[in-house]
């Protein structure tokens, strides 16, 4: 473990400086890259592989198993997550749907490495506010509702200020809602033209911002959706599995639904990183969607 950790620190030190950050206001184009594009891609790939590897390696270490094999498998899964994000940030129709599923397979590989089961034995595939838990060895497919995602979807349907966008939702593989000529003001923390929250996306339907801006915002938010999926599959779902059985009725709930607190994990980190440009998940989304 100690040698592995030293290697990880060395690898992190070799990572190039993050290549992109958002420039100025939310309407502005991203800053010009201060390094070749491949440097940013390599940074993003490396970060995703590192997170996947560390997640699996540490969990296996905590369970008394070997760190290194789990780290390697987790890193491969993390690379798959990067591939999914890369696809989701592309502009073709269905990019989000395909990218989300590719990334979900990558996240499942990390989760399986964490649990020391074969790499593709269990797959957790998000379909809107529902997740399909596929166990390939038994052929079982079990759907579970993401309670928070469902709550946000219901909110989106009921909210008069936004409309459900069928085509963008199909393309994104997640519910997409569009405002009617307004921008989103969240926590009175400034205006934004896009928001991803618990598996749904809200974008500003302001024609004046232009089609290119909207495509970029959608791509940005699709990457956030995958980040949430990954946090759920590898971090918060194991936590729910651990906590829910200890609560009254928790087993029954767990059979049909997940709480889906993944987005809340990032929300908890916001006070620690108050500056938007410094948040790693925003840097990644901005870079990939540029």
């Amino acid at each position, binding site marked *: 473990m100690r040698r592995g950790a030293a290697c990880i620190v060395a690898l992190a030190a070799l990572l190039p400086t993050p290549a992109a950050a958002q420039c100025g*206001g939310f*309407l*502005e*184009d991203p800053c010009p890259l201060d390094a070749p594009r491949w440097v940013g891609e390599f940074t993003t790939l490396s970060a995703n592989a590192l997170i996947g590897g560390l997640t699996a390696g540490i969990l296996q270490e905590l369970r008394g198993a070997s760190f290194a094999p789990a780290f390697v498998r987790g890193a491969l899964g993390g690379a798959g997550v990067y591939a999914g994000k890369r696809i989701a940030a592309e502009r073709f129709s269905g990019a989000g749907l395909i990218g989300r599923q590719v990334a979900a397979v990558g996240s499942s590989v990390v989760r399986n490495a964490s649990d020391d089961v074969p790499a593709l034995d269990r797959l957790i595939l998000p379909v809107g506010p529902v997740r399909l838990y596929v166990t390939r060895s038994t052929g079982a497919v079990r759907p579970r*509702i993401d*309670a*928070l995602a*469902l*709550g*946000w979807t*219901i*909110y989106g349907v009921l*909210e008069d*200020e*936004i409309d459900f966008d069928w085509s963008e939702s199909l393309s994104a593989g997640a519910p997409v809602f569009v*405002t009617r*000529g*307004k*921008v*989103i*003001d*969240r*926590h*009175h923390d400034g*205006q934004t033209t896009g*928001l991803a*929250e*618990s598996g749904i996306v*809200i974008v*500003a339907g*302001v*024609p*004046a*911002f*232009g089609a*290119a*801006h909207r495509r970029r915002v959608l791509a940005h938010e699709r990457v956030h959706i995958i980040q949430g999926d990954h946090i759920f599959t590898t971090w918060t779902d194991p936590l729910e599995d651990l906590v829910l059985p200890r609560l*009254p*009725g*928790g087993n*029954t*709930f767990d*059979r*049909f*639904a997940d*709480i*889906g607190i993944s987005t809340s994990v990032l929300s908890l980190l916001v006070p620690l990183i108050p500056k938007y440009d410094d948040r790693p998940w925003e840097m990644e989304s901005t870079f990939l969607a540029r």
Partner: protein
Amino acid sequence: MGNGVHIPRALIAVALALLATGCIDFVEPTELNIGGPAVFQASMRLDDNGAVRVDASLDPGIDADGLRRNVTRDSVVALARPIPPDEIDAQGARTYLGEWVTSPGVVAGPLTLEAPIVAGVDPPPSIRWGGLVRLDPVLINLPGGDDLALRTMVVGRDQPDPLNASWNLLLRRGDAFLRIGANGPPPPVIEVPAAWLPAPSGVIEAELTYVRSHSVGQSGTSYVGTFAASVTLRWTIVRILGEPGTAPGNGAER
């Protein structure tokens, strides 16, 4: 589903999600000026070497429906010469830069500048201003004790009348200089007392700049233009030591 245990928990989760939505507002975008005017700004500089430089910018703005306005003629027309946009940003704002050299007589005017055409707003604002010419030769031999007299003439009329006009004259020899000026167009003769000239002898460079500016389109119009134009004339003055009035005459070079 029927044992009634997971349903309350699901409802709680949904309630939490709905409570969280109270933190989201949908507001009119403050960075947009929906229905505001198209805004054009331009400055044009000419000199008697025939050098012309035009800097301009256009924000076509957003119509009442929230759509960016189309620019149906993208060029600025300066001195009958179209200048295409140098850059168009993601929001449709344009910047222009035109630089060229033409006949020295360009300073005689007329100085014409017309904004691009933007769909759905008033006709493009424009100016047609008179020029300024030098009536002296470019080289003036000036006896040491003589006052300096520089003669110019404003040619043509200004349409529309500029809101602001001013002139300034810079006389310079090395680090020594004299600057004088006033509002309005330059007088036909600018007289500078001999004692004010920056050097008792030798070559003095003189530069007269006539600047005008105007805003076309007041409140209530849908296309606002702000224009500035300057014309610069130059002389070379050779101060010759000797008695006043004994100069052999001004040079013939113009």
